[in-house]
């Protein structure tokens, strides 16, 4: 029997982590003028946050696709989609086999959050602090690998004794 698990990634939580690390990256940047520093720190400000939203959207879509066996959804009749920028929480519904472990779900949830944050930071750093971009991309890739490998995890089978007494 399959079980439905809903994973919600709150936009405010994602943005806080992105802005927090943006602040630290800006604070540690060697600069000739403060102008270079504030661009790194302003990752969550007007205009900049729209780029972050696009990257979060893209990364979330990638995560949903990573979990394809359990996240797939049939295309509806007369479906229409457009590229209007919208802001909101990211919700993923997984239909998991009953042998799937809750601990694995937790790891997948945390890894997807990490992947979305790191991918957004890698993108922003590629614009404002190029020397840091590769590190964030590496972290994103590590989180992606975790999601990919764990999505196929199962709980072990319990061997039942043949003789109940």
């Amino acid at each position, binding site marked *: 029997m399959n079980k439905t698990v809903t994973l919600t990634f*709150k936009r405010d939580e994602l943005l806080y982590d992105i*802005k927090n690390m943006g602040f630290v990256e*800006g604070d540690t940047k060697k600069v000739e003028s403060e102008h270079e520093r504030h661009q790194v720190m302003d990752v969550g400000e007007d205009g900049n946050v729209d780029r972050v939203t696009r990257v979060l959207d893209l990364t979330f879509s990638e995560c949903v696709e990573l979990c394809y066996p359990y996240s797939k959804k049939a295309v509806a009749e007369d479906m229409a989609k457009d590229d209007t920028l919208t802001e909101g929480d990211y919700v993923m519904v997984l239909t998991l086999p009953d042998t799937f472990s809750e601990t694995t779900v937790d790891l997948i949830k945390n890894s997807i959050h990490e992947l979305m944050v790191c991918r957004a930071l890698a993108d922003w750093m590629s614009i404002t602090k190029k020397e840091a971009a590769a590190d964030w991309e590496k972290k994103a890739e590590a989180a992606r690998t975790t999601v990919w490998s764990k999505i196929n995890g199962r709980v072990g089978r319990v061997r039942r004794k043949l003789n109940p007494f």
Partner: protein
Amino acid sequence: MAKKNVTITLYMSELIYDVQNKTYLKGRSKTDADPALVAQMQANDDDENINQVLRSIGEAFGTLKNKLSEHIEESGTTGNNVMQANQNITVALKMPSNFNQAAIDVISSGMHRYIVNAATADWFNLTSPNDAKPHVDLANASMSDVLDGINKRVRPTRTEVTP
């Protein structure tokens, strides 16, 4: 993200007084100079003096606004070259939500120092060219202070997410 509105007002009377006071003190310190030259160095309220100082203040203000243009939103489509002694200077800055408001004092005092030193340098260019350079340097240093302050940011604070 809501922008932070920061309004800085520089009183023209304070700017003019500071320019006049600096030029007066500089002139007074030249004990071995020709008294006529010293008198020319000391800006006063005579029309030709005050008009020159006002013109320099206007130019310095324009440069300042240009440097801060990233944070200034104005809808006006016209400009003029009139600067009056009774007209205060107001700069309305639209700062990002993570702007560090502790820097406002540095920004306002830096703006004042920039305008005063730029105007004083202009004045000495006309009346005592050898004394202009230090004020150009001071004006540049003041501009750096303003830009440093403008770019100060605070760490984001986490708000509790309601389930």
